[in-house]
């Protein structure tokens, strides 16, 4: 398959922000230096496959990274997370006030850039996405310490937070190219929802050291009082005593003993099976996407086809 030639993406440049604001550029330098840029690469690939010009691709890539990183700046402060990507979080290294303002600045910059581009539908859709992100963060914050949270509620939060960004990565290039067919966007929306769910559920498994190649800290969510999707899934069918003991576990071994090792393993198999079905549903939606693409755009579905497995199984 012919690989598209992606333009070189420059997400952040010190010239984008006033040099006279103390520490702002230093904060952004720290923020953008070590990120993987997964979302910007995704949107750039989609845009390039559709034949978008470099200016459009650069705009979309920068937009999604600015929004994503703005949400990280705010999230770290809200969650009181002291580390981000192995380094001190912005609000600890600088101040909480600077972290908030820096996030706001990124979002404002997004609006400036998009309005300069002049595509009203794209601006509207981006504003809706930011609104969904905030709503998701608001709801997620209210779920901390909530031991009765349901799987459906978590899925909604994930769709608002994680799913919104993936949906935007898939849909915004089409909006930027003024391809606003609602049926096309329905399919893209379905794909984005599934990618968001798979990514988040896979991330939730890391908390239990499942396919934890990144070496993420174990039981971090549970210890901070947040019941993630796999925790809720494991807790189904358990007694209140078992759940209570599991919630107080300080190690993975203790958690598994509280819920039962066999029960944990069986639930993991079921959880994976549930998500395999989502991967298949994603493939089905990609097949439908083909009918909306021109013949020279079909390679896009091959690009996107690898994503679901990559995001969930965390390896190609």
């Amino acid at each position, binding site marked *: 398959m012919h690989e598209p030639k992606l333009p070189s993406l420059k997400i952040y440049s010190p010239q984008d922000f006033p040099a006279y604001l103390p520490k702002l550029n230093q904060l952004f330098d720290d923020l953008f230096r070590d990120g993987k840029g997964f979302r910007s690469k995704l949107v750039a690939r989609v845009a390039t496959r559709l034949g978008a010009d470099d200016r459009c691709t650069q705009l979309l890539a920068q937009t999604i990274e600015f929004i994503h990183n703005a949400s990280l700046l705010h999230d770290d402060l809200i969650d009181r997370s002291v580390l981000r990507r192995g380094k001190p979080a912005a609000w600890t290294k600088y101040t909480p006030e600077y972290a908030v303002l820096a996030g706001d600045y990124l979002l404002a910059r997004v609006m400036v850039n998009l309005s300069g581009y002049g595509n009203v539908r794209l601006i509207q859709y981006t504003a809706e996405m930011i609104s969904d992100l905030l709503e998701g963060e608001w*709801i997620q914050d*209210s*779920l901390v310490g*909530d*031991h*009765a*949270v*349901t799987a*459906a*509620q978590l*899925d*909604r*939060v994930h*769709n608002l937070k994680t*799913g919104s960004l993936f949906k935007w990565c898939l849909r915004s290039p089409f909006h930027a190219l003024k391809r606003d067919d609602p*049926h096309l966007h*329905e399919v893209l*929306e*379905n794909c984005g*929802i599934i990618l968001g769910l798979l990514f988040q559920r896979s991330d939730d498994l890391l908390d239990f*050291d*499942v*396919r*934890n190649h990144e070496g993420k800290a174990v039981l971090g969510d549970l210890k901070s009082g947040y019941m993630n999707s796999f925790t809720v899934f494991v807790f189904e069918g358990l007694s209140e005593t078992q759940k209570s003991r599991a919630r107080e576990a300080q190690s993975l071994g203790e958690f598994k003993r509280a819920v039962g090792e066999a029960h*944990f*393993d069986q639930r*993991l*198999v*079921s959880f*994976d*099976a549930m998500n*395999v*079905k989502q991967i*298949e*549903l994603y493939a*089905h939606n990609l097949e*439908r996407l083909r009918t909306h693409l021109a013949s020279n755009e079909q390679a896009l579905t091959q690009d996107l086809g690898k994503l679901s*497995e990559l995001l969930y*199984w965390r390896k190609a």
Partner: protein
Amino acid sequence: MAKGLILKTETEAVRPQQTSPRFVTLRKDQEPARLRAYLRGDARELLERHAIAMPVTTLKAGALRAETAEWTFEVVPLADLQRDPWWRRTLRALRPESWVLSLAPVLTMLGWLAASSSEPMNLSRALAAVIGVIALHAAMNLFGDYHDHMRGWDRVPERGADRVLARGDFRGFEILRVAWASAGLAAICGGALLIANFDQITWKAVLLLLMVLAVVLEFGVSRWGLKYRGFGELAAWFFFGPWLTGGLSWALTGRIPWSAWVMGLPFGSMALLILHLRNFERIMIDSQAGLGTWPARTGFEASKKFTWFCATALMGSLAALLVFADPSPERSLPVLVTSMGLGPLLGVVRAVRSPSGGELHGLAHRGLRLAWAMALSFWCSDLLRLWGSATLARIFS
């Protein structure tokens, strides 16, 4: 569980060698007939393959306002579906836990009529009334499930993804058949009562009958969507309360004294409380979908206060029953039991912190348990009264 999935270790899962639940997406504007056949479950390709098409759940709140014009189904061979035994599935479809809303007023009214009337009760009419009401209630539940399924509402997790059609327990046309059979049974019982009381049919009785037909249509089919625009609560209060008790009084005695209406007030208030709790549970999804239920319209804090209002109305109506309609000492039992059950329920409501809170989950179920407790206390008080009068009769004979 997917076939072919092998778990190697606790930290590794091998990708499936072969799984293929087939997905089919149908658009209303392109294939309306095929879509309808899939929803009903009688599409030729499904019947030939002995398969069932289950709607895939969606996180889009817009599905509740029919904004999506397409459905995605998972087509699963019946042989691959792990289903409960038919009797358990049937019970789940009929939702007997909800029958308390109609059984409680009917059986309590029968007990009251037996105690307060000097004439012996016509047992065949009483049996027709009980069977007819249960059949009507079951029909309403089944029609409701069927029409929600045809509208795509059971694709939304909070609005019925655990219901029998979404789970694949039955196909749409099977539920519709049972719904019509149940409605037919209710019509036969109702018809028999009408014939028995033919010479006592008044304009009030005709009006009551027309009202119940309208309510059943709305609750079951939601033709005008009034159920989700704030009228559902009022209808529930009236239909499960004064209408049932007044109607039963007319069916068995040909008369509707005012005390028969008062007897219905606690049961109507209980139905109002339960419907409110169910809509309160769904406040977030209903608000996102733009539905006009009372909690969605008035907001989170006002909905919590309205729960207190419903509880006050319930206790007030029990007091009114005790003072005005049935001032017997045994009737203090339901007052005691209900007040003891209301306390913890209101405590749970007070503790709910936000519309997304997990504590909201299961509120309506708690309400139903309270309804059963209240119903049982009413029936126990009837038994006490019967036993008491029999004992007194023995003592003084």
